[in-house]
């Protein structure tokens, strides 16, 4: 006999079965937007530790405070270790500068410049919104250990970006990133990032550890740990200027 409980169960079953179909209609950009909405700090700050590991060598850790405005203005300040303290990076649109306290000047840099000798490039930290620079395509789905993942391919729209292509694995259930592959113009795989340690950070549940492994030098890796994050804090424009970068404001 068909009763109310059976009816609700049927409705629920139908609803659940619709979910993959609904997501399958999503474009690559829409999926990327959802991921970036979780991961990206449009206005706010985050504090990270960046640990560079080399086989058989002592790890070295740098701490960096990063401030973001409008997802387009970024100021990053080194807090530790002592010989790097005071160095800073500024990004305004496609333009980036590095401040060297010993020289008391900021110089233009390219986004491909390595940060503090790590496997992380300046653009990896300073570029906030990937969809501005890359065309995103959903290339398929993969099932890994029972979890469904979207596989996205990001192809550079501009010459100013440092990677010609990225491949992203994003978990279908919650749009959290799982893995990224970074490719050079030649098609060579440069490095791979794996995301883990999903926790609440500043009120958002997201991966708090990103491990970047060099494909050019096996065994070399840099681990970025997100220690703190604050979202929806609007900083003044005056904070994202070369004057602020050079005079420690």
């Amino acid at each position, binding site marked *: 006999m068909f009763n109310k409980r059976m009816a609700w169960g049927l409705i629920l079953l139908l609803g659940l079965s619709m979910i993959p179909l609904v997501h399958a209609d999503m474009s690559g950009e829409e999926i990327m937007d959802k991921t970036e909405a979780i991961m990206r700090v449009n206005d706010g700050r985050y504090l990270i530790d960046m640990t560079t590991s080399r086989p058989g060598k002592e790890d070295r850790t740098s701490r960096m405070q990063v401030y973001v405005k409008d997802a387009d203005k970024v100021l990053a300040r080194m807090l530790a270790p002592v010989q790097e303290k005071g160095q800073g990076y500024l990004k305004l649109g496609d*333009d*980036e500068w590095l401040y060297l306290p010993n020289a008391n*000047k900021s*110089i*233009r840099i390219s986004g491909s410049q390595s940060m503090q000798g790590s496997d992380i490039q300046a653009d990896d930290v300073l570029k906030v919104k990937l969809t501005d620079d890359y065309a995103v395509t959903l290339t398929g789905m993969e099932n890994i250990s029972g979890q469904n993942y979207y596989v996205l391919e990001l192809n550079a729209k501009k*010459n100013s970006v440092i990677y010609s292509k990225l491949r992203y694995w994003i978990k279908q259930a919650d749009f959290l990133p799982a893995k990224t592959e970074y490719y050079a113009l030649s098609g060579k795989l440069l490095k791979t990032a794996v995301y883990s340690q999903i926790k609440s950070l500043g009120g958002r549940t997201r991966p708090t550890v990103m491990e970047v492994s060099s494909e*050019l*030098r096996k065994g070399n890796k840099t681990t970025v740990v997100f220690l703190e994050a604050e979202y929806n804090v609007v900083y003044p424009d005056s*904070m994202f200027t070369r004057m602020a970068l050079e*005079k420690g404001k």
Partner: protein
Amino acid sequence: MRLWIFILSAVLLTGFPASCSAASVGVSGNLEVGPTYNSGSQDTIVESHLGIKLELNQDEKQSGVVLLQYKAKTPESLGDWEDGYNTLTVNQAYLDITLSPESILRAGRQKIAWGSGLAWNPTNYFGADKNRADMTNEFPGVDAVDFETVFGQSSLTVVVKQDGSLTDWGEGVKYVTRLGRGDLAFSAFRQGSANGFGFDWATSLGDYTIYTELASKAGTGRFYVTDSGGELLWVARPAGKRFINGVIGINRTFPDNVMVQLEYYFNEAGWDAGEADHYARYLDDPAHHAEVGDLMKEKGDLFGDLRKKYLYFLIRKAEIADDWTMACRVMWNIDDGGLMITPMAEYRLGQSSQATFMINLFTGGKTTEFGGVLTGTQYTAKVSLSF
């Protein structure tokens, strides 16, 4: 100005501002020790540099700095050239006053570093000259008041600099704006009978950074040696005669932590071949060494760009093998053909320390700028520690 520095130093050392709300004094420093063997004079000197930096922080932002530098060299070598064997200098001592979110006033002894160039900065009218043999060698800052304000994509900086006496002042102004993918700056200065103006432009395109600076100056008192009827004399160039110097450079980053830099410098007021020859003959007499040493200390811009055209090249690769970073720097005096070649290796000892090995090789005839260097090839090894 020295009294000002003393007061500021005392304030920071006693931590007086720490009693004010949200203010603190941070201490950091670096120690560098190592020998240099001079093959020409066949002697070894040991240099020590100790830098102590006191930072006044207010509300977690830096608002003042005192940088003390102690330098020692032992044993005595070419003593009449050197800057002294035990010197304690206040390299920097300034306070930042935030007038508004867009304007900052910095007063005191400070490092002023205008211009995009690495090896040369023609538009850095007030900045201390670089030691091109060792660009990490700190020079004292200048006593000045620096006002900077930002508006939109632009900024305006005005510097008023004191030079020795209370009546000897210089003024400079710089306007910087973002133009397309580049930074464009116009600047000018005046100090006593010297004056000048110039521009500076830099941009990054992909993996390349390109920059250029050009300055026109007059009355800056460049000296040269002239032969006056068999007597060698130091003379200053005519005060009103204007000359141009400029730099153009490019650097590129490559995958795997490689960086290459190339910079071309020209200087209309540089010495010509005849003046260089007179200078070499002047140095043949050791009795002139003390006088030249004093002029170097007083005039500052005597060396490093003696001639008219130079080319500078740097290649650097970090992590060439584990904790090693290798670099090679070449300075080519295009006029006389002499070269200064500096291969370097840095080894990371720990999180805050490193060892550096460096050779300064000089090539060229006796009358060339680099071939005439009396130290001969220099071999340096040093350990540095940050704390």
